[in-house]
């Protein structure tokens, strides 16, 4: 085939694929998606590909991704490597309302935006992410976060913690506080602890890191603890709940972190507070008393308000963790379900996968994977599948998983924002 002929064929095909949406033939309806992160952006693009009119509501011009932001904190990569614009999303045909969603009227099926616009919907997909609870830990509010960063949303907080670590005196003490479940990115605090320990080991070897945890068990625990013993035995001290690890209050003026048993003086303190679904979820009436959103495991439709679907970190997704990978997988399933519902078809029970990589040092990656399906009304683990990297894996497997982690990030950010 000649170059010209081939281009013509490809151009023809591209035109065909836009003109004949496969997913939602006959579907009618208007979908609004709130939240331009890994979940919402994926859902909006999937619906657009299916030929369904969709508006994505997102006030930010640039999205700052959380996966790999622990590397920014440890000085291993710039924050700019976490930044993604929405030009590619717009170019794909998705309409973006660059403003905040202020209210949702589930009965009238309307979203009111901060700029006064009102959007009607047949189906609403909420992918709003988390809110940090500044009412849950005595002493820790928005002002305290300027002295003791949470860095649990990528951006200024991430850079603040990175700067504090870089400026910390030799022989200083870093204190981290980790909340109880559930929260965004279950293995994230332990990856952060690992990479801060690596930073201290390589830059400030007399410094210490104390990790205070409100629980006794955590994601990839044996892998993390084995790596910590091997790599950071004199630097990282882990204090679980059973040993008095639960932080009961903080004092940003004194730079102190208190448990029931002792008070830790910190040169740098990273306080990851308890979390809940972002406020728009509560405004829409889809959060329960836990602060998170119960959903149907087949369609991700809210258990509380019909025609509103919730995906990503805000949703109670059973055994699925609150991760970017999970949000992306849920978005694709939810978009298919919404397309089916708009076309009068019954969505089939889905299967979903999650894979989360963590780095414990440069070139040392570990992973946890899971396969999920609806079972007894919740998303449950498929028995016999999933699990973590082997405890006894050789170095080249750890290196390979670190490479796969980077590759996953490139692939998913290209698919979502590219």
């Amino acid at each position, binding site marked *: *085939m000649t170059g010209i002929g*081939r281009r013509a*064929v*490809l151009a023809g*095909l*591209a035109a*065909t*694929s836009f003109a*004949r*949406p*496969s*997913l939602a033939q006959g579907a009618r309806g208007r979908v609004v998606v709130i939240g331009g992160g890994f979940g919402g952006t994926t859902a909006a693009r999937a619906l657009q590909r299916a030929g369904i009119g969709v508006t994505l509501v997102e006030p930010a011009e640039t999205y700052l991704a959380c996966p790999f932001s622990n590397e920014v904190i440890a000085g291993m990569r710039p924050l700019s490597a976490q930044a993604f614009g929405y030009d590619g999303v717009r170019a794909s045909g998705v309409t973006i309302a660059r403003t905040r969603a202020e209210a949702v009227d589930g009965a009238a099926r309307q979203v009111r935006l901060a700029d006064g616009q009102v959007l009607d919907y047949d189906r609403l997909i909420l992918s709003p992410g988390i809110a940090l609870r500044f009412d849950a830990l005595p002493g820790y509010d928005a002002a305290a976060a300027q002295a003791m960063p949470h860095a649990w949303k990528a951006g200024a907080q991430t850079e603040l913690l990175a700067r504090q670590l870089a400026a910390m005196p030799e022989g200083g003490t870093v204190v981290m506080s980790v909340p109880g479940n559930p929260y965004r990115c279950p293995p994230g605090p332990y990856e952060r602890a690992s990479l801060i320990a690596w930073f201290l080991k390589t830059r400030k070897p007399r410094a210490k890191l104390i990790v205070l945890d409100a629980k006794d068990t955590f994601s990839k625990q044996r892998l993390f603890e084995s790596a910590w013993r091997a790599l950071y035995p004199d630097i990282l001290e882990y204090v679980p709940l059973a040993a008095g690890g639960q932080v009961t209050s903080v004092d940003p003026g004194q730079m102190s972190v208190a448990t029931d048993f002792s008070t830790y003086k910190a040169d740098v303190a990273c306080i990851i507070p308890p979390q809940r679904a972002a406020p728009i979820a509560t405004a829409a009436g889809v959060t329960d008393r836990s602060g998170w959103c119960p959903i149907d495991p087949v369609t991700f439709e809210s258990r509380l308000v019909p025609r509103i679907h919730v995906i990503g970190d805000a949703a109670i997704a059973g055994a699925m963790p609150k991760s970017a*990978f999970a949000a*992306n*997988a849920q978005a*694709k*399933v939810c978009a*298919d379900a919404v397309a*089916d519902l708009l076309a009068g078809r019954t969505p*089939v*029970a*889905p*299967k*979903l*996968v999650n*894979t989360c990589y963590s780095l414990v040092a440069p070139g040392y990656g570990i*992973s946890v*994977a*899971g*396969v999920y*399906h609806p079972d007894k009304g919740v998303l449950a683990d*498929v028995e*016999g*599948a*999933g*699990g973590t*990297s082997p405890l006894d894996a050789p170095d080249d*497997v750890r290196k*390979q*998983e670190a*490479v*796969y982690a*980077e*590759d*996953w990030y*490139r*692939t*998913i950010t*290209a*698919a979502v924002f590219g």
Partner: protein
Amino acid sequence: MRRLALLLLLATPAAAAPPPGATTCSGCHGAPGGAVPSLAGHSAEDIAAAMAAFRTGARPATVMNRIAKGFSDEESRAIAAWIAQGGGQ
């Protein structure tokens, strides 16, 4: 002509709805050239055979062995057929 047929196959939108689990693959498997192998251009037979080999452990893996165990042979074949027909692209 074979190349044209392949191009057509890859670029034509999937007519059928994705079978359970199928849309999740693109979370890791993207365009060719990355460390994670691309699924583009593989036949349904190849993809289903790889899933079966991951499931039994015959083919070494980091995560695919853990993921493949969550899918029956029948489910894997359905996913493989959908991907080979250009689903999700």
